[in-house]
């Protein structure tokens, strides 16, 4: 009996396949005739033909054609499930708001196809394949995690699809030797951010003994390593270089160990859950009373301050200066609260917003629009337009791309938590 039902299923599948194939056989002549019909109507209306002739794709790697009335399609590939999802969802909201605020580009609305990259390499690969197999997608905002970004950039770049990451920070992605030509990012390269904190601690705070902690994630490990190397290079001493599980619930042993090494500052560029746990616990450990605390943009969020309470007071956080002094961010926050019912849960919504605006502006500048509203977007032209972005005012600062695809404002602010808010105390320019 069971075998029969499986057989039924198989037959059905076959039947479907046959229907599909048969359909293709039938439709080919049909489309031909449709085309000729269109041609004839074109000849009848010479104005249209002229418009159609204007729109010829002479792009080196091809064009995306958007038919009249169709939306321009862009994709996002962020981590929107699993333990890291608050990171990716937050960025996705940033993308959505940017699209909403942009409205239409030359009469075409913008549609977002949201994919999940799962914060791992295979997730990035699968999402990349899905995006790459859809020729109507113009560009992609993603990935959240550097590990997913490496395989995905290889796949989407093979198709010439522009890719802008709001939160990949691993140096390897924009390393001239290994960077994919379509890859850009609005997040700060670890090399810049880690170094900024090291310089601030050594030169400005005048501290010479530091400890660094990471959680085994490429982002945090990268930052901690860069900080360590830069700090030693400046002449400081790293008294402890430790790691803790990202989902740890008991960090007292870790901090007791660090306390025994006698640092003047602890640098832990981790994400909010572990970050606030370390912050709260550090205030309660003997021997860490006067020790300064520092973290990176992974915790630069009101959520972090809420979760850490008073313990966060006075700690240093590196990252983009979100209080940049323009009102874009205030409007943005209002929309965010209204649309999603919550305050931002991670810092990268700002980078995602800027990344999306960068992409949309580039599309706007290269799109050719025919008289009937058909839009042609040259892929190479788009990449060139993105990489020549400069001086764009965004939430995270002035966005300018360098030749390796690093587009973040090179200025990094070190903020201090004062009265429950981040206020910039120093700014770093490489």
């Amino acid at each position, binding site marked *: 009996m069971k075998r029969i039902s499986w057989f039924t299923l198989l037959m059905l599948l076959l039947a479907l396949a046959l229907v599909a194939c048969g359909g293709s056989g039938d439709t080919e002549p049909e489309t031909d005739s449709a*085309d000729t019909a269109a041609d004839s109507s074109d000849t009848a209306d010479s104005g249209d033909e002229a418009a159609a002739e204007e729109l010829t794709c002479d792009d080196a790697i091809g064009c995306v054609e958007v038919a009249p009335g169709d939306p321009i399609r862009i994709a996002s590939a962020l981590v929107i*499930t699993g333990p890291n999802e608050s990171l990716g969802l937050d960025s996705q909201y940033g993308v959505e708001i940017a699209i909403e605020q942009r409205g239409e580009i030359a009469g075409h609305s913008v549609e977002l196809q949201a994919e999940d990259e799962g914060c791992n390499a*295979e997730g990035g690969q699968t999402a990349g394949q899905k995006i790459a197999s859809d020729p109507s997608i113009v560009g992609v905002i993603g990935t959240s995690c550097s*590990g997913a970004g490496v395989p995905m950039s290889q796949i989407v770049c093979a198709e010439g699809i522009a890719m802008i990451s709001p939160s990949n920070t691993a140096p390897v992605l924009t390393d001239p030797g290994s960077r994919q030509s379509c890859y850009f990012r609005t997040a700060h390269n670890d090399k810049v951010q880690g170094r900024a904190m090291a310089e601030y601690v050594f030169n400005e705070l005048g501290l010479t003994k530091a400890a660094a902690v990471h959680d*085994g994630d490429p982002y945090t490990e990268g930052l901690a390593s860069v900080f360590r190397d830069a700090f030693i290079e400046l002449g400081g001493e790293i008294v402890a270089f430790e790691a803790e599980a990202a989902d740890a619930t008991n960090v007292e042993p870790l901090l007791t160990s660090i306390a025994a090494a006698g640092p003047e500052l602890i640098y832990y560029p981790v994400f909010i859950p572990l970050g606030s746990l370390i912050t709260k616990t550090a205030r309660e450990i003997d021997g860490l009373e006067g020790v300064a605390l520092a973290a990176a943009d992974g915790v630069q969020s009101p959520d972090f301050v809420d979760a850490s309470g008073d313990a966060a007071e006075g700690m240093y956080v590196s990252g983009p200066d979100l209080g940049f002094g323009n009102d874009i961010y205030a409007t943005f926050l209002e929309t965010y609260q209204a649309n*999603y019912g919550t305050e931002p849960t991670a810092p990268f919504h700002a980078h995602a917003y800027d990344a999306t605006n960068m992409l949309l502006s580039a599309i706007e500048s290269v799109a050719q629009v025919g008289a009937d509203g058909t839009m042609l977007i040259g892929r190479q032209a788009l990449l060139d337009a993105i990489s020549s972005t400069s001086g764009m005012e965004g939430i995270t600062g002035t966005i300018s791309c360098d030749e390796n695809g690093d587009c973040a404002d090179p200025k990094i602010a070190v903020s201090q938590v004062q009265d429950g808010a981040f206020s910039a105390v120093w700014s770093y320019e490489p």
Partner: protein
Amino acid sequence: MNEELRGTIKTGLIAGVVTLSLGMIGILVAFNKRFIVTDAVTLADLLLFGMAVIAGYLGASSLKEHSMGRRLLHGGLAGMLAAVPTFLLILLTLVWEGIRDSFINVEPALVSLLTLDNENVVVGGILLIVVFGVLGLVGVGYAQLPVRFRRPISMSLAWTIGSGVMSDILIGILRPRMSNDTLRSLFGSTGLQPVPFVVLFVLLTAVFFWWQQGGQTRYQTLRQNFTPRQQKSSRRVSISLLVIFLLILPSLLGVYLSEIFNEIGRFVLMGLGLNIAIGLAGLLDLGYVTNFAVGAYIMALLTSSSQFGPENPWSFWLAVPICVVAAMFTGFILALPVLKMRGDYLAIATLGFGEIIRVLARSDALKPVIGGAQGILQIPAAQIGGFMAQVMGYILNPINNLLSRFELGILATNSNGDIVFGNPPQLYYLFILASLLMLFISRRLNNSRTGRRWMAIREDEDVAAAMGINTTNAKVLAFTLSAASGGLAGAIFAAKLGSIFPSSFELLISINVLALIIVGGLGSIPGVIVGAFALVGIPQLLSEFAEFRLLLYGIALIGMMLVRPEGLWPSEVHRREIHSHGEDETAVPVSVKP
């Protein structure tokens, strides 16, 4: 209040709570963007109003011998009750301004969806109750239909809705074979266009109806009347058709679906391996990711051209056997300490191994060797070059030339004449090759002396030992062989990704593999394949709803086990076991002790 009324109220309220949950956890709003029938019916409509129909259906079908009037009454009541909790929620939003601070998904969009876009929320809510009541009546009507109509209709409805949900996948398959205009007349930006939807529904209903009313029996008698010779040749024909189908599949599916097939292939490989340990030998291994990780890391270490690789990187084909052997060795070593443990002790110990590997992979301690958090990059794709590729090219190129007329193709050589397993359609052949190999080995093991030894141990270890089976050796062998397939999967995985990071080796992988072999049918080889399709393939296709994927996955696991505990394609032995499991099964006496 009589018994039946109480039953109906209960049914209605349960449906109501489910409806309420759908709204409050955000499914409705998220699915409202997704059309099934373009610009007419969204997935959210379907879910919301479907609940009313189901409530009516259940409410009516619980009373068998009553008049139509009473049935309609009960169905309508159940339908209306299904809207009551939602109505209460609507009222709640009026008095509790800050409800969204607590329940994040109770947003204006939800309220307007639930009130059928009415300005006045209360009126809208009452309207919802009325609509639900009417739909409850529809449910009753559906329950009244004779089974021979109901079944084809439900099946074709499911298929049609399925095609609506999967519209973007279908578009992906059809795009190279159809003109844009045809596609546009069939599909909207999401969902099927109304006319094709209705046509497909009617067509499918007719087909199912025909099949049920006589097609099936006719087909069966036809097959039964085959002479042995005919049977043999029909078998041969179907096998060769299957082989051809498998060979041209990736070109039929396109890049993205091939990628999904490859993901399925990866899990089939792991499932086949774990099936040896759990399905055959009964050893509950929750740390199967260990073998996978070892295979992947060894492949990376041997072939990567980064600083972690050797000075002269190996070729993929040379490295694969090493990976398999390394995984087997790991399986062997890890088997030793856990041999004496049974049941759940074994489970937690193996789970521990999986966690140890995960932590070690990202640790600073091993960073100099295996890259720590930053992983290992620059792993080349597998490729065949030189003479071998030339020979294969002589065979493959003409076939490809022929097939390309039909927009089809098979394994192809690149412009240099090499065969590179880089993109998903090419990698597919690697996975097929590996899966067939492991399938063959598994089949042989299943029917071998060793296989029977394992099954004896699975049934009763003490008795097996008493029968003279060396249980120690048999178990060590089971672990070792089971690891081989995981190592192979890992090796191909590394070459497929081109870079590996510790985040690919999580506990979730072990859980997924375990779930798929149980959902497929424990100990059954076809079951592994079916399970992988169900638990790896379908969730991938649903990645639109990524946020709710794991929720649906959880529901599917529970539902599956409740409806078919023996799995989708159970092995004979296992099915017998499940169905003979009566009340005579005595509990294993372990007490809650002081």
